[in-house]
């Protein structure tokens, strides 16, 4: 039987690097190509209980919902008028800030009225059919809270839609 010669003990063992580098580059290219830069997305919850969507449903008769009515320009779909409980708020970007202020006032009044009142309070969004959807998000955002120094102060969390208006 031949016994292995141990004379070459001092010599370095060569590990083949080429296959590993091949695979590693493959992986690198795969992850680089599948990379999709996605902007962070957030949710606005909508509270739509089942039943009778044709008529305006009132959950609590003592606490009528705040009505946010939005009228659209029939040609472009931009916001032409914004109302909060019938009060005009304007027709441009500042309209939503005014709405936000009005909501804050109402929220403070509700807080003074009782602890449960604020949780039960609803906002009903009532847009024209052709209104651009981005205005809806602006209005929901104005009703649901405000960013103060990077933190969200929540105003009203129950938001629903009014019955659909006819398409013109």
């Amino acid at each position, binding site marked *: 039987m031949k016994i292995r010669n141990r004379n070459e003990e001092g010599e370095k063992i060569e590990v083949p*690097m080429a296959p*590993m*580098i091949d695979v*590693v*580059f493959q*992986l*690198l290219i795969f*992850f*680089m190509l*599948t*990379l*999709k830069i*996605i*902007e*962070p*997305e*957030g*949710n*606005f*919850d*909508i509270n*739509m*209980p*089942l039943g009778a*969507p044709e008529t305006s449903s009132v959950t609590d008769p003592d606490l009528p919902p705040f009505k946010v009515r939005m009228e659209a320009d029939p040609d472009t*779909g931009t916001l032409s008028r914004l109302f909060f409980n019938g009060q005009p708020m304007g027709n441009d970007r500042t309209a939503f800030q005014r709405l936000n202020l009005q909501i804050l006032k109402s929220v403070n009044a509700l807080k003074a009225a009782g602890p449960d009142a604020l949780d039960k309070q609803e906002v009903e969004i009532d*847009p*024209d*059919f*052709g*209104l*651009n*959807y*981005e*205005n*809806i*998000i*602006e209005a*929901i*955002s104005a009703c*649901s*809270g*405000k*960013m103060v120094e990077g933190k*969200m102060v929540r105003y009203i969390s129950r938001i629903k*839609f009014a019955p*659909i*208006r006819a*398409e013109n």
Partner: protein
Amino acid sequence: MKIKSSGSTPPDVDMTPMIDIVFQLIAFFMVISNFEQQQADERVTLPRNQLAKPPEVKRDDAFTLNLGFDKNKEGEIIDNTPYIFFGDERVEVANCSNRLRQEAQFYTTIGTPLEDVTVEIRADKEVPSGLVQTLIQKCQEEGIEFQRFALKATQKVSP
């Protein structure tokens, strides 16, 4: 003067730093890439909003509806009718009841009550809002009856 001998042995290249960096890159791309958000359709341009914060806990039972316009590669709208996109398929809001019914049946089959399922609506910012309302109404038709809805928006970072 000593002249370098050009022997037959190839010069030894040190591979270690390169492999270090390549592994770093792989780790970076692995962490960054996100396989979950495959339901998002790039034809939909979401509205931007400051309050649209990504949820910290992911919802278990949620499915996404993409409502937007057909766009060409440059991102221009080529068709003024809004469609709901299901992969390569597109369906008008008026004809989407069958798809929604299938979705509702799926959740019923796996034993999830429909009131626990969230319908996430990713609608383009220029879609008429009446259509979004119609879509919500369609999701509540006889036999579909979803109750939870969430409207999606991209987060706007305030300056």
